[in-house]
């Protein structure tokens, strides 16, 4: 890396790409070249037919070496296309990639202003001027190379946590699995059978518990709680209380698999007041313990405490399938019994769910649609049954289902343990209470904090297979930095000038990633956590924060060169 001329006049090389004739047939390239040559600091300017081709890339490397250039400007197509390719070419030739600047003279110039060649040319000249002015103020920067411990902490020993644990352990990573209950299994321990296959929970759970408890790469803590998490991506220091003592260890990544709990519909539909009204989860227990007496009629009410003003506003995804499953199990146990599912919109999405639903209808399970304006009610009926009165929206009739058992389908919600983890790890929860994924990651396991991933119901209600899938996804995301034992954090991070810092802590308030800490009256930014948005720098009242790669000086240079000579 060429860092030998920090105080000397920069030698800027400018490459103007013609992109075939694409740019040149609107923008007057010779004029752009001529003007570029006159700019201060520019030591040579070259035209190229196509910088992105392998010949073009080679030419760039040769030209840099030949001309002893230490900063580069590319006047070409959008940085989004070949930015990384050209940066790599420059680094190979000894120019730090942060000493490069791009002028977009194709998409944002020639292609945009094809009707105004003079205006486009003027703009292109200024675009190059801006890029040159910017790169003059740039500094060579080094991406932060974080060492990553090839071990992971998995919080939660349910199906998601265990799946991720086994997957990573099988790849040779050390896994610390922390579970607050005495036994592994999480929510599945409370379930009876699983839908789609109607297999018993133990068929799915036993092999995986066996795998987790016997794997030499997995250190298991049960009846344990997470006490403290310090450090950052690559080097988290974990403190766990377990086995009557305190254990400390280091990990590179963390996977949250803290699950969810079932909403208790206290006061809704007489739950808690009357006998014979249970939640689906309680029904699972009854079925598991074979305590269900032959009912005449069973009514299941969907969306209790969900999709509305009472309870939570969202749909909990799985409750319709859970109801269909439990209805199926009851019908198989007691074929003469009548089972009604009173629903709003049946969430039997996809193919396998629809097939399962179709089979349930074939068994004779009845489906009654209601609308939120006309919710079902449980009214007294005198003969000891629970009269469920419902206006059947499709028949246009009010029906009375005199039931022996009423089952309320309630949503999954975040539980206190998840909230505590959110605070401890400084990982935000969404408005629905579940862990909020990082945006723009194209999937749901990455969180806003580097090195922490989420899977299973902790991220939002989902089925078993969806939880398993997400657990594998989290394992994949955690595995890659651990495989390389290092990760590169781009150098675009904020930096505090202690002398200027007045200790107002505005930066701390503004930073959504908790990358700012306060020590001895001054703010300090943890590079490994900083994501480079620059909000702190923009808001600092004493101009104490510098945004590497997007410093005030760099941006102001562009601002001042934007309309030069117009």
């Amino acid at each position: 890396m060429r860092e030998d001329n920090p105080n000397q006049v920069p030698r800027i090389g400018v490459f103007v790409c013609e992109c075939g004739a694409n740019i040149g047939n609107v923008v007057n390239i010779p004029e752009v070249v001529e003007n570029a040559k006159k700019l201060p600091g520019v030591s040579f300017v070259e035209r190229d037919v196509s910088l992105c081709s392998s010949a073009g890339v080679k030419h760039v490397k040769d030209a840099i070496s030949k001309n002893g250039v230490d900063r580069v400007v590319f006047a070409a197509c959008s940085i989004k296309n070949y930015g990384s390719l050209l940066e790599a070419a420059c680094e190979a030739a000894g120019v730090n990639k942060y000493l490069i600047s791009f002028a977009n003279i194709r998409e944002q110039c020639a292609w945009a202003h094809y009707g105004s060649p003079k205006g486009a040319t003027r703009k292109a000249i200024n675009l190059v001027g801006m890029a040159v002015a910017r790169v003059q103020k740039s500094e060579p920067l080094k991406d932060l190379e974080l060492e990553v411990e090839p071990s992971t902490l998995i919080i939660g020993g349910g199906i998601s946590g265990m799946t991720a644990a086994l997957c990573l352990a099988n790849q040779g990573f050390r896994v610390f699995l922390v579970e607050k209950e005495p036994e592994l299994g999480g929510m599945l321990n409370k379930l009876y059978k699983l839908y789609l296959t109607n297999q018993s929970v133990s068929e799915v759970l036993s092999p995986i518990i066996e795998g987790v408890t016997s794997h030499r790469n997995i250190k298991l803590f049960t009846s344990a709680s997470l006490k403290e998490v310090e450090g950052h991506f690559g080097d988290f220091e974990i403190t766990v209380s377990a086995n009557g003592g305190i254990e400390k260890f280091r990990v590179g990544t963390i996977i949250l698999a803290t699950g969810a709990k079932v909403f208790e519909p206290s006061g809704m539909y007489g739950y808690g007041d009357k006998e014979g009204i249970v939640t689906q989860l309680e029904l699972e227990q009854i079925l598991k313990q074979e305590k269900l007496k032959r009912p005449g009629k069973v009514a299941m009410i969907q969306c209790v405490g969900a999709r509305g003003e009472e309870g939570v506003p969202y749909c909990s995804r799985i409750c319709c399938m859970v109801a269909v499953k439990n209805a199926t199990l009851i019908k198989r146990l007691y074929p003469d019994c009548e089972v009604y599912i009173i629903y709003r919109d049946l969430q039997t999405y996809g193919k396998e769910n629809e097939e399962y639903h179709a089979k349930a209808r074939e068994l004779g399970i009845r489906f009654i649609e209601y609308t939120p304006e006309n919710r079902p009610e449980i009214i007294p009926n005198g003969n000891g049954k629970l009269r469920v009165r419902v206006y059947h929206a499709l028949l246009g009739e009010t029906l009375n289902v005199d039931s022996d058992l009423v089952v309320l389908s309630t949503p999954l919600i975040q539980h206190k343990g998840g909230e505590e983890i959110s605070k401890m790890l400084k990982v935000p929860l969404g408005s629905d209470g579940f862990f909020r994924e990082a945006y723009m990651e194209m999937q749901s396991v990455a969180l806003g904090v580097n090195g922490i991933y989420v899977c299973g119901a902790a991220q939002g209600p989902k089925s078993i297979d969806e939880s398993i899938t997400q657990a594998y996804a989290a394992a994949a995301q955690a595995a890659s930095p651990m495989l390389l034992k290092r990760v590169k954090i781009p150098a675009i991070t904020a930096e505090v000038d202690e002398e200027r810092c007045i200790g107002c802590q505005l930066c701390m308030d503004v930073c959504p990633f908790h990358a700012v800490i306060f020590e001895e009256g001054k703010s300090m930014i943890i590079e490994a956590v900083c994501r480079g948005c620059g909000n702190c720098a923009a808001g600092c009242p004493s101009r104490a924060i510098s945004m590497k790669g997007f410093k005030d000086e760099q941006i102001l240079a562009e601002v001042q060169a934007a309309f030069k000579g117009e």
Partner: protein
Amino acid sequence: MNESEGDKEFEPKILAFTCNWSSYSSADQAGVSRIGYPPNVQIIRVMCSGRVDPLFVVDAFLNGADGVLIAACHPNYCRYDSGNRYAKTRTKFLKMLMEEVGIEPARLRIEWISALEGRKFVEVIQEMVKELKELGPLLAENDGRKSV
């Protein structure tokens, strides 16, 4: 666009701060689709609209910009969680400040433009050009102030 030499009509200059994840790409998309718009706008790329320091806006006005656009991600869609929210607040206060010192607040605009809204980017530029033509140039010619 009328490109005759010696055209005396005022062509406003707009400086646009675009964010890397959304509006910068929308400007690219506008180019790819070849819908065409006037070359009055110069674009500066930042990682997040929240990076836009009020100082940059002021400096822009002092260096030839007749109008400034901050193009950010839609609410709830900022890659850095809330940068666009801060950009909006800063814009609000900047407009108040502009009014105090006698610069028309309409010269500063903040818009939500996602990566695939190239058309919106173009429409906003066209609107701003029209408005700024009516407002006239910000600085009279030969104004000495050139930097902060």
